[in-house]
């Protein structure tokens, strides 16, 4: 520990800007059904619940999470799903996705129109009065087929849950992709 870091630890220093992260359904659903609390997806959601970063969702992502977990493969009820996510729903900022009619946006999601509402939620975070000025924003998805990890369209870092957790553990000093 250097003298300056020791001094900073005593007197405190200015807080670092929080990160902003849109969590895709492909992170929420595995987190919901995980058998243990120490899997990456669960850790990412728990960090959101603890308020370590600004978690952004949209009604589209919430509905898709509910619908997926109600499928016969899972068989959960809406009440069970909402109870599981009550802490996250309360903590997250629920934004309206920006309009995504522009065909140019399709390139970002490899032409898959189904992914546009999630990407448009990330763009809504850019446009939000409170979240917009925060410099570091992520779209966290395990759907690496359509969201290419490492890409940064419109200032949104596309990362997998694994990568996001790795960066989060390093804290504000993490080297961003």
């Amino acid at each position, binding site marked *: 520990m250097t003298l300056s870091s020791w001094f900073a630890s005593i007197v405190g220093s200015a807080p670092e800007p929080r990160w902003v992260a849109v969590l895709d359904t*492909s992170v929420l659903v595995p987190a919901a059904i995980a058998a243990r609390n120490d899997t990456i997806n669960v850790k990412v959601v728990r960090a959101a*619940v603890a308020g370590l970063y600004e978690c952004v969702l949209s009604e589209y992502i919430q509905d898709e999470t509910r619908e997926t977990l109600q499928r016969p493969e899972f068989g959960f009820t809406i009440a069970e799903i909402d109870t*599981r996510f009550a802490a996250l729903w309360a903590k997250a900022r629920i934004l309206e996705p920006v309009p995504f009619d522009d065909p140019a946006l399709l390139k970002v999601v490899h032409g898959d129109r189904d992914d546009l509402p999630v990407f448009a939620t990330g763009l809504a975070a850019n446009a939000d009065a409170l979240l917009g000025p925060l410099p570091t924003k992520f779209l966290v998805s395990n759907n690496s087929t359509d969201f290419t990890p490492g890409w940064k369209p419109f200032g949104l870092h596309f990362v997998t849950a694994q990568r996001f957790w790795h960066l989060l553990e390093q804290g504000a000093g993490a080297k961003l992709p």
Partner: protein
Amino acid sequence: MITLTSADIAELETLAQEVKVSRPHASRLIRRVLKTAVRPSDETLVTTSEAARVLGVSDQTVRNWADAGWLPSKRLHPLGRRLIPESALRSVQAFDAAKLTSKKPVSEDDAVELVRKHRRERART
């Protein structure tokens, strides 16, 4: 380290004010003691190790987050160790407690594939 009650603090503050002119050195001394004394609080605080256990990370990660201001923390004494308000961890414990009991075990990888499948089916309808 001295722990004072609210009544002790109020009495010492009054005393420091009363002797400010007649005994300025004593007044300053009382104020110095008050600055370093542990003040009572209703808030439950936990150590960084305890917070690390709840959050499933290392102590160093908790310290990183606290240094960045991402996790609230405080010290009861300028040279004391960093403590985390228990309230910051309560919502995580609530999330853990609401665990879903799977009727049909599905792996997390299969769950990601089912999200993709659901998204494709939703787009078709």
